[in-house]
């Protein structure tokens, strides 16, 4: 059925359910964003043999809250001679597009066991037939946030930074979309849930993921590398962050933005990091499929979430009790108790444990890719702009096209007709 018309003729309850899901997702993602900044600062610091934020709250856990308050209270200056409409539109556009791309990401295979007034509650906001194309459209439109911000600031450095950054984004968009075509050829569908279910093999486990495709397909290692490198460049992260590096272009396209508008760019960047990590996990690493096969011999791996959660929860409780502040003494043990209780519930109720396997594996893969991003930031030096464009056009585009050709040849060779 035409998806738009069927959405519109559903009864009232469906809209309420969608709005609730959106609000919940936004709250969760914004919190994750805030703690992602904390995580990044901590991990980069530990890689550089220093401690990172450790004053504001135990282990620096309240640092994101302090940063948020700082952003809210800074002076919101609008420079002279800017084009007001475009200047205000750019961060809004960047943030909206970055958050909108989360709508098509599926977080788990099975719907919740209870219904919302007769409507099934899936673990995604929407699952269109062209889910992956929707993500690429939103990425394609994301160039405007940067380009318009650079131009509207009426100043040399932001203009150069904005032009460079948007040229970089457009170049790497090409190899990003081409490197995914191999996965699409093997999955025969744009829908993300279809792509994940194609990587599901009871016999092979992790080896059936698109990286290795033991179950009949062309291994997409090259495609994954192309995609990940292009995605890092697309999101303007180190080592491709010349357009916003401080030593090079003051702060690039967001020089003239202060307080909340700058925070919007910041949130947009970290949210697109989360989206790209989820895409890597979904397209190349099996999504919500466990790396272990489904044979009964491997059933003990179902207890992995509890094995992680219980000791971690207990550690958080005992660590929190060491502090004297309110946050350390009360909130941390509370959080620790909740985590430990969740671990215990998972051991006690196998039905809940089975349900949580899918989302657990997907979230841990997303976490791993986010760690990879932060790891790259802490370790790699920055590319010069001409080196950056060389890699984009002369290395990644031919390699991803070659990947498409080989995968297509393999699929043709293996097809039954």
């Amino acid at each position, binding site marked *: *059925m*035409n*998806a*738009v*018309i*069927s959405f*519109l*003729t559903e009864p009232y309850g469906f809209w309420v359910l969608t709005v609730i899901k959106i609000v919940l997702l936004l709250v969760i993602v914004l919190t994750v964003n805030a703690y992602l900044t904390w995580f990044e600062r901590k991990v980069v610091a530990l890689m550089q043999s220093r401690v990172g934020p450790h004053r504001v709250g135990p282990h620096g856990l309240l640092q994101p809250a302090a940063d948020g308050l700082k952003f809210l209270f800074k002076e919101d200056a609008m420079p002279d001679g800017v*084009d007001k*409409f*475009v200047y205000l*539109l750019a961060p809004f556009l960047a943030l909206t597009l970055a958050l909108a791309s989360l709508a098509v990401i599926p977080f788990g295979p099975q719907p919740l066991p209870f219904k919302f007034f007769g409507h099934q509650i899936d673990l995604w906001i929407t699952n*269109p*037939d*062209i889910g992956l*194309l*929707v993500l*690429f*459209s939103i*990425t*394609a*439109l994301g*160039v*405007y946030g940067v*380009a*318009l911000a*650079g*131009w509207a600031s009426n100043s040399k450095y932001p*203009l150069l930074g*904005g*032009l460079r950054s*948007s*040229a970089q984004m*457009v170049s790497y*968009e090409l190899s990003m979309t081409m490197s995914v075509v191999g996965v699409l050829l093997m999955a*025969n569908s*744009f829908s993300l849930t279809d792509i994940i279910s194609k990587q599901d093999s009871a016999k092979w486990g992790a080896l059936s993921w698109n990286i290795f495709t033991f179950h009949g397909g062309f291994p997409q290692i090259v495609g994954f590398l192309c995609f990940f490198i292009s995605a890092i460049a697309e999101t303007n992260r180190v080592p491709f962050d010349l357009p916003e590096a401080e030593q090079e272009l003051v702060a690039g396209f967001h020089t003239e933005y202060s307080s909340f508008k700058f925070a919007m760019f910041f949130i947009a960047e970290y949210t697109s990091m989360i989206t790209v990590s989820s895409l890597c996990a979904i397209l190349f690493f099996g999504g919500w499929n466990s790396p272990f096969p489904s044979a009964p011999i491997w059933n003990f791996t179902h207890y992995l979430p509890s094995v992680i959660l219980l000791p971690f929860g207990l550690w958080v409780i005992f660590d929190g009790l060491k502090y004297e502040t309110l946050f350390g003494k009360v909130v941390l043990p509370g959080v620790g108790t909740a985590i430990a209780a969740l671990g215990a519930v998972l051991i006690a109720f196998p039905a809940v444990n089975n349900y949580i396997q899918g989302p657990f594996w997907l979230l841990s893969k997303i976490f791993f890719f986010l760690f990879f991003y932060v790891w790259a930031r802490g370790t790699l030096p920055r590319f010069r702009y001409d080196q950056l464009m060389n890699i984009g056009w002369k290395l990644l585009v031919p390699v991803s096209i070659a990947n498409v050709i080989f995968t297509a040849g393999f699929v043709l060779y293996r097809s039954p007709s």
Partner: protein
Amino acid sequence: MSPALLVFFVLAALAIIGALSLILQKHPIHSALSLIVVMVSLAGLYLLLGAEFVAAVQIIVYGGAIMVLFVFVIMLLNAGEEEHTDFSKLAKFGGLPLALALTGLLAAAMVHHAGSVPNPTNPDALARTSSISIMLFSTFVYPFELTSFLILVAIMGALVLAQREKS
């Protein structure tokens, strides 16, 4: 009024407002932004017509590549607001009414021949991407290869135009 009709009117109004804004804005960057609004609302209309692949391609190619190119050029050339020049009298007093008459003629012709335009037999059908691709590679394979050649020619043309003078 069915929900589909309501969505159609909203998207159509958005498209027409965007097109009017293209004409009425003075700065080319605002015209470019209005054109992006038109393209996105047209993509919404394609979704309403069941053409989901075409809608996605419209946003990715038109909205994400062609319009980015326009915005780049406007930024590079530092285009300012339009100068206020005098129209030639013919254009001002004859041009606009004639253009509106053209639109009116087209619309009237369509309404007059409304009987011969069939209403869709299956308005809820969703065009599958696989069907489009099968058609593209079987019936339309010759134009397909020609368009790849056309893109190559365009790339070469753009490269030649971008060369510096060898003086």
